[in-house]
């Protein structure tokens, strides 16, 4: 075996090597624990954009220097990091949101949503999004409205965005 390859695969356990291992482990723990957290999608509320069982990373610094916009897919913390919802922002604070025969209506105007696949027959009377809140809905509108968790949520619950 080539000497360099042998040293790479079976390095000598020197103090410098141990320091490097600890530093890499700490950086990985910090990055994947607090900055870019891996997660598995459970549930069908964001289909067909995000499939049930799919794997992704939660990019937390996304809104450090910008504010959530309409159309963004965001991760919403419901209970710490144990329960996090993926939803799409369809209206911002102060806007009026409604569903009429399956069509999203914001401030009285119908909104085209190319990411929504399948039929939708939702009807929801208009309501105004409160200050410091956004209105979020999943992309899967084929499921009955009663079974779909959506609504306005406080901005402080947005913990990041999926990386892809």
């Amino acid at each position, binding site marked *: 075996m080539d000497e360099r390859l042998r040293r790479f695969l079976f390095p000598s356990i020197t103090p410098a090597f141990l320091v490097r291992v600890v530093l890499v482990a700490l950086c990985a723990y910090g990055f994947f624990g607090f900055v870019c957290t891996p997660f598995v999608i459970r549930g069908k509320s964001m289909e067909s954009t995000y499939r049930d069982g799919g794997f992704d990373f939660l990019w937390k610094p996304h809104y450090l220097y910008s504010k959530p916009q309409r159309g963004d897919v965001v991760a*919403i*913390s*419901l*209970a*710490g990091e*144990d*329960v996090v*919802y993926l939803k799409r922002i369809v209206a911002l604070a102060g806007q009026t949101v409604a569903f009429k025969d399956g069509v999203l209506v914001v401030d009285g105007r119908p909104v085209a949503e190319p990411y929504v696949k399948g039929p939708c027959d939702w009807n*929801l009377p208009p*309501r105004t999004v409160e200050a410091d809140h956004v209105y*979020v809905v999943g992309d899967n509108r084929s499921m009955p409205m009663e079974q779909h*968790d*959506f*609504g*306005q*949520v406080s901005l402080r*619950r947005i913990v990041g965005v999926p990386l892809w």
Partner: protein
Amino acid sequence: MVTRNKILAGVAVLLAVWAVWTFFPSRTRQVKRQFSSFSEWVSKDGPEGNLTLVNEATKADEFFAPQCTWEAHGYDLNGTVTPQEVSRYYFAGRARFNKLSLKFYDLDIRFPERRTARVKATVRITGTLQDGDSVSETHEVRCTLQKMHGKWLFGQVTVVEVLKR
């Protein structure tokens, strides 16, 4: 000898820090402990005997003020209740569950007055009913606790929907 004395002094300092930490917790830690105890009081791992249930139900006054105001519109739990009434709810509600877990997350604790704590938290309830159906709910709760007889007791509990349609 000097080294031995230094080690003993170090151990004594560590013990003192531990004792202060354990026996004189800050107000924030006291409130956190109360939430943790409340979680344990409500949660159950499996079937339990009636005697245990009755015994546990009588502990409501360790968590609730003599008059506690509830606002939980989704549960028909509104108005002012006494610890005795909470005990009855506890007994009836808990008997419906085979397994029950209640956990608090993201506790935001403020002290507007010396003996009053305002807490905003997320509560997650999961469990299995006696008929086998699963329950999984998440709500935001806003609580006011008052310090009475050395304990932080719930005086007001408001349940807020996290996703409000």
